[in-house]
């Protein structure tokens, strides 16, 4: 061994010695407790109880708390490492089908915790509560209707998930696992004599069952929707439709309002005699623009209640009304038909009185609130063709000012017309 080789050997030994010495020093970032679960539970002791529940979220069970939480800092509540949608989708992305046609809003909003406990639960799929109880905690109105219905539908009792996918559906609307009518004919076999007889031999297996039946329960026999059109109740489908043996059995015998006039001639003729029409009455769809021809949940066979129905076309008006601080009571309550005739009228804005003043005074006693002249003899100073009426000072839907006045102060309001008093 030459002196050079000896130097190299000694140097190597020194380096190895130094490395071993360094390795022996404490790592300042090493967890005191190597088991992450134990480390977290050291402070979050209440989780002991959670872990005893029947269903524990796998990452919790495995002690992978940092799978969802950042142990140091976060921009999200509960030190979550991202927003809930991202965190849950990281593992559960497939709960929503790729080409979903409907997605549960809470899922779309990333509100998974509205249904699931992210740590543990006594209910399967770590749900917050069991079965329909959970669904009806949000869908309260439906829950009440189901509980009060005289005639129930057994799949509803078995659970909403019998027909609906709680996350999303790539089959159709309303989170249905199978589209209508397939979801119905799975149980209600349309090829039986009883089924066909009850449906007057019309091939309803190709139709929409929910246009007549309420799948959640009803006070009507055969789960018919609460408001039933007489020909449906009387099983005289052929009063409106072609014969069941026809090549087009669901075609109506006449188009639009002409079909409805067969029975509702007084109403239709009175409407057509008006100077102004609500145009959907006479468009190709006619009455069914607003009314369900078979059955409906709402009175008068309306498709939706109150202003919700009007919103279908008049969304802009309802949006403005919603933003109006001082609203007119009927408007706020969604009673558009309190002032407007839904079929037709002789007045502008489809009001069902000969004039605005006549309309307003059906509820308001004008004599009690002002001595200002109105109506025929009160010529508007701004325009000789106009007469002063309630809308000269108020807006019938509402304004930002008290009493739905057009201006904030009397001075501003009065000088709209009485300009000589303008300061």
């Amino acid at each position, binding site marked *: 061994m030459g002196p050079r080789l000896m130097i190299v050997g000694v140097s190597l030994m020194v380096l190895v010695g130094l490395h071993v010495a360094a390795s022996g020093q404490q790592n300042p970032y090493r967890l005191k407790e190597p088991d992450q679960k134990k480390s977290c539970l050291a402070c979050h002791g209440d989780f002991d109880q959670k872990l005893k529940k029947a269903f524990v979220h796998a990452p919790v069970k495995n002690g992978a708390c940092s799978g969802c939480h950042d142990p140091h800092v976060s921009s999200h509540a509960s030190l979550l490492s991202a927003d809930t949608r991202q965190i849950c989708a990281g593992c559960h992305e497939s709960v929503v089908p790729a080409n979903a046609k409907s997605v549960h809003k809470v899922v779309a909003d990333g509100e998974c915790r509205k249904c699931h406990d992210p740590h543990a639960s006594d209910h399967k799929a770590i749900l917050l509560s069991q079965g329909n109880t959970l669904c009806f905690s949000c869908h309260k109105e439906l829950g009440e209707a189901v509980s009060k219905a005289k005639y129930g539908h057994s799949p509803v009792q078995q659970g909403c998930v019998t027909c609906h996918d709680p996350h999303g559906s790539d089959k159709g609307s309303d989170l249905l696992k199978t589209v209508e009518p397939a979801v119905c004919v799975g149980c209600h076999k349309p090829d039986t004599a009883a089924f066909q007889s009850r449906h007057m031999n019309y091939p309803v297996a190709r139709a929409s069952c929910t246009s007549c039946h309420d799948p959640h329960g009803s006070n009507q026999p055969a789960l018919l929707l609460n408001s039933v059109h007489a020909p449906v109740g009387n099983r005289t489908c052929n009063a409106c439709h072609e014969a069941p043996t026809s090549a087009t059995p669901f075609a109506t015998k006449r188009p*639009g309002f002409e079909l409805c006039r067969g029975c509702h001639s007084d109403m239709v003729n009175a409407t057509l005699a008006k100077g*102004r029409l609500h145009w959907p009455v*006479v468009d*190709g769809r006619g009455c069914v623009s607003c009314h369900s021809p078979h059955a409906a949940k709402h009175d008068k066979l309306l498709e939706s209640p109150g202003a919700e129905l009007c919103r279908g*076309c008049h969304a*802009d008006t309802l949006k403005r009304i919603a933003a109006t601080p001082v609203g007119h009571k009927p408007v706020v309550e969604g009673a558009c038909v309190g002032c407007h005739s839904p079929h037709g009228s002789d007045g502008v804005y489809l009001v069902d009185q000969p004039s605005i003043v006549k309309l307003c005074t059906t509820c308001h006693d004008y004599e009690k609130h002002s001595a200002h002249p109105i109506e025929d003899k009160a010529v*508007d100073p701004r325009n*000789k063709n106009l007469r002063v009426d309630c809308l000269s000072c108020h807006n019938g839907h509402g304004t930002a000012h008290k009493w739905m006045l057009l201006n904030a102060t009397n001075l501003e309001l009065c000088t709209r017309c009485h300009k000589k008093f303008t300061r």
Partner: protein
Amino acid sequence: MKSAPIACLVAAALVAGHLGPVTAQAARLRHLASVYFDDAGIGLKLPEGVACGGAGRLVVGDTGNGRLLRFAYQDGKLSGGTVVRIPQVLAPSVVQLNSKGDIYTLDSRQRRIVHLSPEGEFKASLAFDGVPPPGTVVPRSFAIGPGDVIHVLDAFGRRVVALDAQGKFQRALPLPDGIGFATALAVDAAGNVLLIDSIKRRLFSAAKDGSAFTPIGGDLSESLTTMPTCIAASKGVIFVVEGTGSTILGFGQDGSFLSRQLSLGWEEGELNHPSQMCINDKDEVFIADRDNSRIQVFQLIR
């Protein structure tokens, strides 16, 4: 010298590209006059129709009074105001003139289109003979285009029916699939039929000899915030009258938003629930200012 034509083309393209939108955007309305009375001093009442034609012809559908009024508006001066009141017309709403000055009006109470002579004598009601099923026609609006072809927006049949000057059926254009509700139509100088969906806020056009409507641009909801009552076309601009909004919007032929003119009010130059709008060859604009019970005249400055 080879580069000269190219430079010219580039320059022309730049100028065209510059002038096009600027010209359209510069279009604005300057108030000229207002029409309040007939020749006997009787005031208008909720007029919904107004038609303008050559030689200053102006016909007003004085809907609330159940009559038509014939005026002339020439060189900034209004004359006439002759009353036309006939039993065949109870509530004239939309009014149109053909190239011969004949008057057509949609009676909104009887829901039929009545044809009158230029002097206001009754000639006929459109019978829609030969129109394919459904046989019932409920006119919502109508417009007369080149060749005096009458285009009727049939609410019941969800179509536009074209009739020749003699009232004979020419063709039917189905309304586009998925349309909300078509309120109004117009025919431009080239004979293209323009249509507006007042619910979904979309414009459509059908070529003069076309068989279907195609969309112009996209959703207009951002600019068209209330229901439209009328559309009019002039020199590449599609004007849309907002009823509740009481404004006049301008759109390009591609549906692009160009301008918003006028606003709700009672002063002259302001509107309250305007209805029909007409533009003549002198760029004079006549608007039936319904809830102000007057017709307003504007100069369109491009």
